[in-house]
């Protein structure tokens, strides 16, 4: 049976008729797929049928037509209207139906992203894209191509909090490495905005150590930010890569981020004036990389680092001595820094303003409270879940025919070709 798509009316009738049971919808999908070219070639005439369809019920048909309509270049005058209709569709469409053709759904979302960027109103896409991600995701562990777009509009609209909500899900299933790189990069920046430095570090770390066969700009930028966040959060930076880092990254990343490596070196000396002079001298480079704000945070974290070191050595210390040792100009300023750190829970101390003494205390946590036990309990169960996942993955990999064939080939090579001088690794 062939779908009669010669007229708008017959198409509408078919869609309306076949949007009921899941069997019908599958059938409709097949029909629409066959006539995709026709719809696309006459997109303009089919556009009118959108008004006759109910997006919440006839989602599949609506999606086909909408995708065809938005495929071509869109005049500026219609942009606003298009954004509105896509947003409305995303809001109400049926999850089951759109999952039949994820490509089309993603493509209209990408068009939406494109248009709001052109209109300079990223805020308008924040909520719809979040809904879209939730609808198209088979599970929260899947990374969709919409993730990076969503995080980008969040960043531009400064909606860090809503962007962060999606970062709380752990992502494991990745289709496109590029999506993953961008997801981690934008995600890391959102975490910086939310001052969740540990999470930001983790995301940047994922980019830097991701398997890659050639250098890419995302990794370079992520590495720069990784250095800076590491200095701010951990107050140190280790320039050695973990051994699982790809060799391309190990060889090249440092060359591309020279001033940042030097900044880290200067930081490790603990000398504030030297660090400030270095930042001053390289201000332009940092500004061009849009990292000047972070660099300034690095400088201020240096004071905190120096104060924190004192807590290891001293029980009591006068504010003046703190100022002297941490290279802070006045005792008053030192007091401000100490106060800030106490408030942030970074150090435990009391300030005696009468004689200007600071008394450093031990961590008051006794690991006896109910909350702590609960926290430990939840950590244990989380890690158990993770271990289980690891085992499953290991098992599935051990059963993967592709993997076995590769490993089998390698083992054979070991056994029989020990005397063969020519490496056969390359004739795969």
């Amino acid at each position, binding site marked *: 049976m062939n779908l009669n798509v010669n007229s708008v009316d017959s198409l509408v009738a078919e869609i309306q008729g076949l949007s009921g049971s899941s069997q019908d919808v599958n059938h409709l999908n097949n029909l629409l797929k066959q006539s995709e070219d026709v719809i696309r070639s006459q997109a303009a005439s089919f556009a009118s049928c959108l008004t006759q369809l109910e997006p919440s019920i006839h989602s599949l048909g609506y999606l086909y037509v909408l995708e065809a309509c938005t495929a071509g270049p869109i005049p500026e005058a219609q942009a606003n209207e298009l954004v509105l209709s896509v947003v409305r569709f995303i809001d109400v469409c049926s999850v089951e139906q759109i999952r039949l053709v994820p490509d089309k759904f993603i493509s209209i979302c990408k068009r939406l992203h494109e248009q709001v960027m052109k209109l300079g109103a990223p805020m308008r896409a924040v909520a719809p894209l979040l809904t879209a991600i939730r609808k198209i995701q088979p599970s929260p562990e899947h990374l969709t191509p919409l993730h990076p777009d969503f995080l980008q509009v969040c960043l531009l609209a400064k909606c860090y909090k809503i962007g962060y909500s999606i970062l709380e899900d*752990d*992502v*494991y*299933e*990745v*289709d496109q*490495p590029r999506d*993953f790189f961008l997801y981690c990069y934008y995600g890391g920046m959102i975490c910086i905005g939310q001052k969740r430095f540990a999470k930001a570090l*983790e995301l940047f*770390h*994922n980019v830097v*150590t*991701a*398997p890659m066969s050639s250098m890419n700009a995302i990794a370079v930028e992520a590495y720069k930010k990784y250095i800076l966040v590491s200095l701010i959060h951990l107050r140190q930076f280790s320039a050695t890569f973990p051994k*699982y880092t790809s060799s391309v990254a190990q060889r090249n990343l440092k060359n591309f981020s020279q001033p940042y490596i030097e900044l880290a070196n200067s930081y490790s000396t603990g000398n504030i004036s030297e660090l400030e002079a270095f930042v001053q001298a390289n201000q332009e480079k940092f500004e061009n990389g849009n990292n000047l704000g972070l660099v300034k945070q690095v400088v201020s974290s240096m004071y905190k680092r120096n104060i924190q*070191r004192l807590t*290891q*050595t*001293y*029980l*009591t*210390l*006068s504010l003046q*001595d703190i100022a002297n040792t941490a290279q802070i100009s006045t005792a008053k300023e030192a007091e401000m820094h100490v106060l800030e750190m106490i408030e942030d829970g970074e150090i435990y101390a009391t300030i005696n303003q009468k004689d200007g*003494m600071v008394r*450093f205390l*031990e*961590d008051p*946590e*006794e*690991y006896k409270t109910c909350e702590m036990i609960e926290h*430990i309990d939840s*950590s*244990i169960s*989380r*890690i158990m879940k*993770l*271990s289980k*996942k*690891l085992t499953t*993955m290991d098992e599935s*990999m051990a059963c993967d025919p*592709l*993997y076995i064939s590769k490993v089998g080939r390698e083992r054979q090579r070991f056994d029989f070709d020990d005397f063969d001088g020519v490496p056969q690794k390359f004739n795969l």
Partner: protein
Amino acid sequence: MDTEEEASGQMTDEIYTNGGDDESLSQQQQRRPIISGEQLDIEAYAALYTGRTKISRLIFIADKCGNVSMQLEALRMAYDEIKKGENTQLFREVVQKIDGRLGPNYGADSGWMDAVDRRADQRKEKLENELNAYRTNLIKESIRMGYNDFGDFYYAHGALGDAFKNYVRTRDYCTTAKHIIHMCLNAILVSIEMGQFAHVTSYVSKAEQNKNDLDPITIAKLQCAAGLAHLEAKKYKHAARKFLETAPELGNNYSEVIAAQDVATYGGLCALASFDRAELKAKVIDNINFRNFLELVPEVRELIHDFYSSHYASCLDYLGNLKANLLLDIHLHDHVEMLYTQIRNKALIQYTHPFVSVDLNMMANAFKTTVAGLQKELEALITDNQIQARIDSHNKILYARHADQRKATFQRVLQTGVEFDRDVRAMLLRANLIKHDFNLKASRKI
């Protein structure tokens, strides 16, 4: 703390003012000539050594002492010593350094130089002829002797590189273990003079391979040489072990390299800087062999005992007194500062170890320093995690810090959990990315 020995603290200031008028001190000086709190007695010092090292040590002192009369004294003795030998190159150097300041008797004696050079040329010719004759006759032993004579000749004339080459060349003609040992000792001697301590180590181990043919004196010599090599490489612990193992048979037998007094000083200081208390007791204080050496340098013996019995003030006093002279030692001068800091840190750590709280004022007293200075030193040691304590700078008290095991365990467990969590997630992700790449390649292939 014992404070009766504090009085000797000012002695450091008087190192350059000659304290010879004090009778008891000058008596002591005769008994132990090299190292004492007083100005170095160059004549007694030089008498401990023979050969080339005597000259180099004298020149070294002249370069470093910064005291004109002492410098001239050292140069005068070096001049006399060189005149006994045949090293015209060194002679010119010394004459230039003297620069006519010692009167006409110590000028550039060109007649002597010419005579020596002429004799050297003749001797060289003779040796060459001899060696060629031996080589045509292929008599192994004679060739070895020929090369050896060449080595001796070059060594006497100051061409150390050539001497080393010729000594090493004898190796192919060595027929007995004794010959090999002889070759090694020569190579070691020249290497030490050249400052090539890497060679020293390798030739010492080569010589030690012939265990059965080594007499006690040679063993002692080899141990000293190995100790020197370790000292140069800043491996103080190894150096200390070697010097401590040196047998008393050494006596004055190795005066072309090292004096027995040096063994005591080097060994003692390296041991103090690198050994812990138990090791110090077992290997230094209870070591009968080494005691013989220590008797030669009572200051070092005293300071080791003071250190062990926690009389740090007097120990540091002794060290302070010795410092100026140790800086004039050709082998030790580079390491004095480092050894001293290590010894001082050790003392600080040992001092604080048994106490729950220490009054900084008292401690500063014991270490002859100010409270502020002490605080800085302690701060560095605490940051390095060498002392587990915290400073109450308000009341100037140091409190030992006893780690709360339970708390630390909880902290570590949670930390490990977080790290494990993060690492496993990152690993799963990477695995998936690799798998994706895999799939992509596979599908392309199909």
